[in-house]
């Protein structure tokens, strides 16, 4: 099995590589297959970064233990972008030009993805992006394994409206791109299912006082509250909501709640509903093994969709390399486009050739004492939001991120 030592080794290799000479070394046939990971192991996003780094390391170590790829060992070069876009740009260029990586895995926020994507496209290096995000990226050089609102929220909203017999909602969202887009989807699916949106409020990411908002919600008396709150300061909302005694009064569902549940007390966090294409508590055998390896080798308890799909993303790519018999970028892209799939911890994940996003099972869960309980599964949901604006089979040269028009 993999061990912490392999992680050490991989990191040390990365260090040695990055401390190498600045000068042209010329190109030569490399002895190993190179995978570069760009994640934030420090700074504001490090909770996600650490599990993504661990999941990628685990996937690489398992591949190497099984004899590597095409008879060569896989070398992992890990970069910590420190939640800093400038460093993300620098490392992406470094991975593409100096390391000559065969694939780059990572980029966590939408901003860091948009920093990496054009660089890798310019240098013809394949890119696997594994975060759930707002959807709409249309780029043949990138594959996205995370879920998008057209998959997850399309199922979550009707489910909770039906379960709680809710006809009116109040929406609270973080004032940034993901929050804005999610709010549009919330509104669309609420009205489509015969509900009313009583109010929508956006919060800058440093807001810690939710008192006035809680009062406004009490005035509006909605049947449920929909949330996309993000980051440390926004955690205040759950505490102030519970302290005001509202937690038992009005049920909540969230479009972005993962590691927060580990920190919230049962009185604050229990019963909030979410939808993702992976839940920590999935009962399948592959997930049990994956969870055990993450805990034993890397000390990571709660795994969220980003961590699980970093594992998915690498394995999709590795399978495609085996099948294509080469790491050549176009050959691998074409193999992946041939409905490549991976049956892993998150269930069956299949590449959708038109959008380069993935068809995945969507799980509805509720937080319960720091873990997620699975309530319902909607198998094989297609990325209909991105599909509405993007068809790479028709226009393979497209590179934009579209803003999905929500009507």
């Amino acid at each position, binding site marked *: 099995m993999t061990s912490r030592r392999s992680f050490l080794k991989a990191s040390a290799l990365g260090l040695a590589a990055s*401390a190498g000479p600045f000068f*042209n070394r010329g190109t030569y046939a490399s002895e190993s297959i190179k995978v570069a990971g760009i994640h934030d192991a*420090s700074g504001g996003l490090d909770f996600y970064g650490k599990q993504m780094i661990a999941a990628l390391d685990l996937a690489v170590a398992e591949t190497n233990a099984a004899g590597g790829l095409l008879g060569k060992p896989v070398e992992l070069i890990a970069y*910590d972008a420190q939640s800093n876009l*400038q*460093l993300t740009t620098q490392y992406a260029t470094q991975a593409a030009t100096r390391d000559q990586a065969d694939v780059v895995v990572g980029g966590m926020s939408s901003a860091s993805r948009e*920093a990496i994507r*054009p660089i890798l496209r310019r240098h013809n290096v394949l890119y696997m992006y594994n975060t759930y995000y707002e959807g709409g990226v249309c780029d043949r050089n990138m594959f996205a394994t995370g879920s998008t609102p057209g998959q997850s929220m399309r199922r979550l909203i009707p489910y909770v409206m039906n379960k709680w017999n809710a006809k009116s909602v109040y929406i609270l969202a973080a004032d940034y791109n993901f929050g*804005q887009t999610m709010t549009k989807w919330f509104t669309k699916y609420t009205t489509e299912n015969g509900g009313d949106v009583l109010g929508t409020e956006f919060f*800058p990411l440093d807001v810690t006082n939710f008192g006035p908002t809680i009062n406004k919600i009490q005035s509006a008396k909605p049947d449920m509250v929909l949330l996309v709150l993000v980051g440390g300061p926004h955690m205040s909302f759950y505490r102030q909501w519970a302290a005001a005694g509202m937690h038992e009064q009005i049920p909540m569902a969230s479009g972005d709640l993962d590691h927060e549940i580990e920190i919230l007390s049962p009185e604050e966090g229990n019963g909030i509903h979410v939808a993702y294409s992976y839940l920590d508590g999935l009962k399948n055998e592959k997930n049990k093994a994956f969870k055990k390896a993450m805990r034993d080798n890397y000390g990571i308890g709660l795994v969220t969709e980003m961590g699980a799909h970093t594992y998915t993303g690498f394995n999709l790519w590795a399978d495609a390399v085996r099948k294509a018999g080469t790491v050549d970028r176009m050959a691998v892209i074409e193999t992946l486009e041939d409905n490549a799939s991976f049956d892993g911890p998150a269930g069956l994940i299949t590449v959708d050739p038109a959008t380069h996003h993935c068809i995945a099972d969507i799980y509805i869960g509720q937080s319960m004492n720091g873990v997620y309980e699975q309530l319902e599964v909607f198998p094989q949901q297609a990325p209909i939001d991105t599909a509405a604006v993007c068809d790479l089979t028709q226009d393979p040269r497209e590179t934009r991120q579209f803003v999905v028009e929500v009507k």
Partner: protein
Amino acid sequence: MSKLMNWSGSLLVVLAGLLALVIVPSIVELYVLIDLSIYASFGILALSLGLVWGYGGILSLGQAAFFGLGGYAYAVAAINLGDSASALLIGIAIPACFAAVLGYFMFWGNVSDVYLGVMTLTVALILHSFISQTAGDQWVIGNAPLGGLNGIPGTPILSWPWSPDASMTLREVYSVTVVLLLCSYLGCKAYLASNPGRILVAARENELRCQLLGYNVRRYKQLAFVIGGGLAGLAGVLFANSVFVNPAMFGLSVNAQSIIWVIVGGLGTLIGPLVGAFLVQFLTKSLGSISQVPGLAWLDPNLVLGLFLVLFVLFVPKGLAPLFRSASLGLFPLAGKAGLRKSSTNGRQRSGT
């Protein structure tokens, strides 16, 4: 003799610049060139703060406000006009105008140095939170959405005025950045050698005496602040060409780093902040690889930068530049002496009393 020292310093910088232009691109890999372009744009930001703070005694803790404003003005103008050369000028003009307005509030409101520091920092932080929450559909200027936290990933790259449709290659961006860094450095030198520059330094040394001699000190400070704002804007434009514009340009971390460059390099010099910027940036980037090695995880970038700042303030308050000077004593003994004496009356100690 101190003139000799001065000119030998400028000569060194010009030589280093020529080296960077002619030799470096042919021997290093592309990613190093991109790193160097980013560092060079930070170098211009460091120059602007070195000028405003080191020579004008204006403690601008929020110099990144102009840096970010320059980047955003450039990006929005370039997207709307499609002509990046005039966008470059707009990217300098808008922060300069903003500096003029802010300077009017501060210098004519008699805001003293400490308040001034807090005020500029607060302005930068306000701009940071403002621009971070522009993700909504209503925040579009012409064809350019401001993009909130994501910034504007498709920031257009500069093009030559004679062929506005083709953007420059990364190597060309590098050369342009280095040339503009050199021009900025020499421009600052020329400004400080001119009358307004000399009066600025005189006012830093003793504002009252300067006023009694009949100079309207506010105007000269205002001029320096506006020049600094424009330079920082230029730095932002060039940074946007190597990365892309995003709210972090206004953030606490860029503000803190620019102060650290100046402190590490040496306050009251121009070459010091420049060298400081390159050194500290190189260190920050190296930490991204090192802190991954288990056992070194405690090397958190914030921790290292913070310690740097504390230690330099306590033990090397004049920064590294005087050390270079004393190292060059052997070469120009008399000039070195004059240089040292000059640097001993440095603005930070003064303005503290």
